[in-house]
């Protein structure tokens, strides 16, 4: 017997009596510190998702064997299925703008490993820019955008792989809302109808760092450079492991299973020396709206609360992270403090760039380190990359691009899969 509770002046939430009891317990329950409800709530949501599918209300985009899934342990101890092939690349807004090497390195790695993927042009921003755009949007709109993109992937018969931490966190929360609230579901459905789509909810919301995590040994097999002398510090993105915390990957063999595994695990698999530091839990400084409206505080935080302690405590050669905002903030925020005369500095890049570099990718053509501001030259030298001659190659390559050549590794490989017909699932 469903109950209707009023959550705000305008919105009602319809949940079962059991769920109601659970939600009522949220405030009192100490575990409710997690982003949305307790771990039990989250597992209940997954159950409810299956129920909805049985009742025919939604379609679930299952991680079928076709995607050659690998299992990972999440914080909730549930095993999460990570698809490894036929991936629909859900790109990130800031990535392409600020750190183009991030995405091209990932594509290069996939091409090297022979992973089929789709680089679909029919993808929109998740519109959670800066996470909920600091209030510029609402749950229904965000959920509709989420499901629109998931539907686009589903029609292409490819599994969505989300590059951006913000999109990833936002999608996990939107999925929770869509499943748990009938009203949001109905409203989103009516919006999707207008654009000829329907509710297709992915069985797993998957971040690219989780894909790197499960593929790390394959990547390590193809390693060309010795990175055993390279020491690495890792910054995990808040949006990946603090939003719906129970759904992110942890591994007992990585950092004792106490800290998020992806990225750290990739660095370890490649043979780099992983260094821990005291403020690993702190934000990169990006914040929510802060990077937009309070740059002074964002850059100061990034430098004084992240970069400087990391350099002082670990002396790492490189700082790896797995989100657009984090790479940008941590890298770009070093410029002003260095101009002020502060000395501590560390190059920052994504785990995909680091993996590609170790696999022998070109530092400029593929990893595009020329866009990074913190000095990466000592790191490249340590990895055995002759960056001076690579620069020459890069210039020649630019010339070829001017003459019309397109880089092969960022082109989506042709796929012969048939599109799912729209409306078939309705």
């Amino acid at each position, binding site marked *: 017997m469903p109950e209707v509770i009023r959550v705000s002046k305008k919105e009602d939430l319809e949940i079962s009596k059991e769920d109601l009891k659970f939600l009522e317990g949220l405030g009192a329950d*100490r575990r409710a510190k997690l982003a949305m409800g307790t771990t039990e709530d989250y597992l209940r949501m997954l159950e409810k998702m299956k129920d909805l599918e049985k009742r025919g209300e939604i379609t679930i985009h299952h991680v079928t064997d076709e995607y050659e899934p690998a299992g990972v342990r999440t914080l909730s101890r549930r095993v999460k299925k990570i698809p490894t092939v036929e991936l629909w690349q859900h790109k990130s807004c800031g990535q392409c703008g600020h750190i183009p090497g991030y995405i091209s390195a990932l594509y290069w790695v996939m091409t090297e490993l022979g992973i089929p993927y789709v680089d679909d042009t029919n993808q929109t921003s998740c519109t959670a820019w800066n996470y909920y755009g600091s209030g510029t949007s609402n749950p229904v709109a965000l959920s509709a955008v989420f499901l629109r993109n998931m539907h686009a992937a589903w029609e292409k018969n490819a599994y969505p792989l989300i590059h951006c931490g913000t999109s990833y966190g936002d999608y996990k929360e939107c999925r929770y809302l869509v499943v748990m609230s009938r009203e949001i579901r109905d409203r989103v459905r009516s919006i999707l109808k207008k654009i000829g789509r329907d509710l297709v909810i992915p069985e797993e919301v998957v971040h690219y760092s989780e894909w790197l995590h499960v593929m790390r040994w394959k990547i390590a097999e193809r390693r060309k450079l010795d990175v055993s002398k390279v020491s690495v510090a890792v910054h995990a993105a808040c949006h990946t492991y603090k939003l719906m915390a129970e759904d992110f990957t942890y591994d007992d063999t990585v950092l004792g299973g106490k800290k998020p595994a992806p990225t750290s695990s990739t660095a370890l698999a490649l043979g780099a020396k992983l260094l821990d*530091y*005291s403020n690993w839990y702190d934000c990169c400084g990006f914040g929510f709206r802060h990077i937009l409206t309070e740059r002074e505080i964002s850059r100061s935080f990034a430098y004084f609360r992240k970069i400087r302690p990391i350099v002082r405590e670990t002396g790492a050669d490189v700082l790896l992270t797995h989100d657009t905002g984090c790479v940008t903030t941590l890298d770009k925020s070093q410029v002003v403090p260095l101009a002020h005369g502060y000395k501590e500095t560390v190059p920052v890049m994504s785990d995909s760039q680091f993996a590609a570099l170790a696999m022998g990718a070109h530092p400029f053509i593929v990893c595009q380190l020329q866009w990074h501001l913190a000095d990466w030259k000592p790191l490249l030298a340590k990895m055995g990359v002759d960056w001076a001659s690579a620069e020459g190659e890069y210039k020649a390559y630019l010339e070829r691009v001017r003459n019309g050549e397109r880089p092969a590794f960022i082109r989506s490989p042709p796929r012969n899969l048939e599109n799912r017909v729209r409306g078939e699932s309705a």
Partner: protein
Amino acid sequence: MTGTVLVVGGGPAGLRAAVDLADFGARVLLVEKRDQLGGAPVRWKYRSLAPDFTPTEEVMGPLIGFCESSPMVEVHKGSVVEGCEGSVGDFTVKVRNEADGTTTEHRVSSVIVATGFEHFDASVDPRYAYGRAPNVIGINELEAMLKEGRVVGHDGRPPKRVAFIFCVGSRDRSTNPWCCTVCCGVSIKQAIEMKQTLGDVQVYMIYMDIRTVGLWEKLYWDSMEKYGINYIRGRVGEVYYTGEKLLVKGEDTLVRGPFEVLFDMVVLAVGIEPGPGTKQAAGVLGLKLNEYGFIAPRQPNVHVDSGRDGIFLAGTCIAPMSIEETLSEGSAAAMQAAKVLKKTVAV
């Protein structure tokens, strides 16, 4: 009818009770779980006792010596009480020796329970990195170091800067909600001893409240006025080992300012909690435990009265308390046992 009294636990309270009863003329059956008499002060090698820095031996030595040599006291070390039947004046108890597994039966007139306490295991609370980072120790472990006169970190070097973190495993709903009453005083005593031992060490006491009750207050005043020990009101959120030093992250609530300061050593004022021995003894003797796991007396203001006739309580199995209170409770329980003896047998 028998003139023997069973004392469960060979710590300060149990020893005091045994000595008083033996002096009174009663025979005492003293059962101690460990292989050593003296309880926590001896087991953890306490250097001295608050508030007057009395060497532990001075207080415990005569009690242990008396019990080990007196013909009136039959000491069973490494043993536990396994069964208890009968009623006041005539109990039959089974005592099992844990080493050889043999069980002996004894008839006793009354029972004194003085099973003491355990120090809180700080590894339960991951904030303080106890058990994971070097140089994070409990006050119990520091006592032994002080006794040796060698306070050093894991690298063998004396610390230059030490933090004491108060109320570890005390006054906290996620661990133990009660106040352990003595950890403030003991920590301050140790801080003073550390100053005396190391000289140029800087000591910081990170506290919620300072609870140096009664005459123990002198420790608090002296530590500030004579030894220049620093007090920071606030809590610690995390202790992080940087590979060289301990980064203590906390808040100074007097300035509303977060601090992150490096220390060479962190001492945790681990609280008092009921140990497994207390639970076991309560089970065998049919005594009630309170919500915290201490033995509940019939009436909270009368500690000795267990609620079962002929069974009396003493010391920290009832509630956290200082050693002076524990010793007095031993005597008080002995008095109750003596009253039973007077009623049942001529002594």
